């Protein structure tokens, strides 16, 4: 009896290994009774509510179009979207990210918006040129700007007060790879063990820390070591579209510094808590008092406001490194799938999503800095009204910035970085070995 069962079971083994895990598209976009249903894919839960509200407005203005939002977290989003693209059942309109843009534009899965822009005389000069330019290839336009973001140092007002610090004490901090500089000194003051001893004080027990000075979490590096890399003179690539160079000393030092913050100085929340994809998001970590500050992106403002309401948090600049200040700067676009069955309706939706009206309401809700330059003030004022000064993000955007690497190897880098940097933060792998491994693998993936 066992034999008869076993053979088909083994046969199933190989098959299931490959087929059981495909995340297919539902492909249920379509039209019925003159109504068209568009699928709109996005990855940020925090932004979804204000966007959804605005989309209801859009549906009211366009009674024959229904919009179905498809939310997946960052990791699942890309594997799902690409599987759907391969299966020709991608969402009609979706968020696009610069790290996947090279691949998508090459594979021809994005609709060229240039003729549509010309036909409807859409004024694209309202967008920050820094945002819009990156999405044009040979006169073709593959997306219109949705937003932009930089990284800042979010802090808990209470934790700062308890340590006898003021927000001004977080200004002008510097770090270096040798002794950590004033940045580490300040974080030590914000790190407290169960007996009330602060890091650096005699008798401090690094194994029983109640509150850490800093929390970091970044699936790619955008919110943690890339910023230190920029401040340390590291270049992730030799040139845009070029080869990865993260095994260079300036980069390795930046990776080392993030590991040191955790394992040498004991001022950052251990990787066993924060490692993605299971670690709690940083607004949670700071919100429940496990860390005093967190390096995170401007898109997280609403989440911090929920975790630490009523002026419970503020935002300071990132520290400066050996070569100065700097932050990762990034922006997303709204894109249309080239294979959409409803190009006309998808264009209507995209026009709405990149319109002044939509981006104003999203900015008013404090979700993200808008792609339309003139609305930056709306976003800043929305936060000013809540007592949070967010101008640091804008200053960072105007200062030294680094964009996402432009590469065809984004998949490889993203998947490997998640796995390998987790091991570095845990202390299982050295910064140098990790950098070399990711560098080699990502370069090997460039055809």
């Amino acid at each position, binding site marked *: *009896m066992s034999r008869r069962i076993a053979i088909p079971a*083994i046969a199933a083994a*190989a098959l299931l290994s490959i087929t059981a895990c495909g995340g297919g598209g539902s492909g249920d976009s379509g039209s019925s009774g003159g109504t068209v249903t568009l699928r709109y894919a996005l990855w940020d839960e925090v932004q979804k509510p204000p966007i959804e509200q605005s989309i209801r407005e859009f549906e009211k203005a366009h009674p024959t179009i229904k919009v179905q939002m498809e939310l997946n977290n960052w990791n699942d989003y890309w594997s799902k979207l690409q599987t759907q693209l391969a299966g020709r059942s991608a969402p009609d309109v979706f968020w696009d990210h610069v790290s996947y843009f090279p691949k998508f534009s090459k594979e021809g899965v994005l609709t060229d918006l240039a003729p549509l822009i010309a036909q409807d005389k859409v004024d694209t000069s309202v967008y920050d040129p820094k945002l819009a330019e990156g999405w044009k290839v040979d006169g073709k336009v593959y997306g219109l700007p949705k937003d932009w973001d930089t990284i800042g140092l979010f802090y808990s007002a209470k934790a700062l007060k308890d340590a006898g610090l003021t927000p001004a004490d977080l200004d002008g901090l510097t770090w270096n790879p040798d002794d950590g500089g004033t940045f580490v000194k300040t974080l030590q003051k914000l790190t407290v063990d169960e007996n009330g001893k602060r890091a650096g004080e005699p008798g401090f027990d690094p194994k029983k820390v109640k509150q850490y000075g800093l929390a970091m979490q970044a699936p790619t590096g955008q919110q943690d070591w890339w910023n230190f890399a920029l401040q340390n003179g590291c270049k992730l690539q030799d040139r845009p579209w070029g080869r990865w160079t993260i095994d260079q000393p300036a980069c390795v030092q930046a990776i080392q510094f993030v590991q040191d913050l955790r394992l040498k100085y004991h001022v950052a929340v251990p990787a066993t808590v924060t490692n993605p994809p299971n670690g709690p998001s940083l607004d949670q970590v700071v919100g429940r008092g496990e860390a005093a500050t967190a390096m995170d992106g401007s898109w997280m403002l609403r989440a911090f406001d929920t975790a630490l309401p009523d002026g419970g948090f503020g935002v300071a600049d990132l520290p400066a490194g050996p070569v100065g200040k700097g932050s990762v700067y990034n922006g997303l676009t709204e894109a249309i799938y080239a294979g959409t069955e409803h190009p006309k309706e998808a264009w209507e939706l995209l026009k709405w999503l990149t319109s002044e009206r939509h981006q104003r309401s999203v900015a008013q809700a404090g979700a993200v800095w808008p792609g339309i330059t003139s609305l930056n003030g709306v976003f800043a004022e929305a936060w000013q009204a809540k007592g949070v000064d967010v101008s640091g993000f804008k200053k960072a955007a105007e200062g030294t910035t680094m964009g996402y690497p432009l590469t065809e190897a984004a998949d490889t880098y993203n998947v490997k970085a998640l796995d*390998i940097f987790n091991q570095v933060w845990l202390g299982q792998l050295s910064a140098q070995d990790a950098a070399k491994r990711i560098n080699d693998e990502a370069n090997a993936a460039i055809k």
Partner: protein
Amino acid sequence: MRRLRDTAEAYALLAPSLFGFLLFLVAPIFGVAALSLFDWNLMGAPSFVGLDNYRELSADPEVWRAVLNTVYYVLLNIPAQTVLALLLALALNRRIRGGKVFRVAFVLPWMAMPVALGIIWSWVFDPRYGAVNQVLGMVGIDGPNWLTDPAWAMPVIASVNVWQYTGYTMLILLAGLQAIPHQLHEAAMIDGTSPAQRFFRVTLPLLRPSLSFVLVTNTIGSFQVFDTVFVMTQGGPGGATDVLNFHIYQQGFQLFRTGFASALAMVLFGLILLVTAAQLVYFRKRTVYDFS
């Protein structure tokens, strides 16, 4: 003539399932085997690369890590699940009040969706708000960060699956126990054997058909663990739960290296084939099917 008709009839009856078997089981296996010789990103045209994928995977430390992780998982999962199921089956084999209720209760987890269970168990094992650490906290133990600590992630995954599949294994072993004729135990008792002797000399040998069935099928299932890993850890932290099937998914559907993923699937297939063959050889020699 009659025989011929019988044969024709049998084949006619077999045809529908044979068709499905060929189309959905045999053909895809050959498909995967063929794909493993190509380099293909799912969108462009595949290019033939011969055995390159196999050469690459044999030198890939991550593949070896995935193999070891898979074996580690099977070793955590199978013994615990089988022993636990056997003990439960022995307990429920007596005529006790409410025995049927227990039987149903133990089988319930097996009928639930693994993905939904994974999400619920992720909450239960949440280091701050989860039930496990809350209970540990009551007795003064500071529970670990179960799913982000590389030492704990795999045992947690294994325990979730033990919990889910023990009931099913128990059910089959219970059926096996109930098929053992009463007289054999009675005869042994009259001969003055101890309960332990009766268990090891009578019960266990006669339970071998059921035991071999659950061991073979559960081991195959264990080698293919995917859903719990996908939902609870995504192969992390730092690759600690990156089992073969998850690695195949990652190569195939995150990195879109369909050929390489197919080659990995063939490795998993070979591994399962080997282990299953060894199990079958072992049990064939030692199993009695006829109790009369």
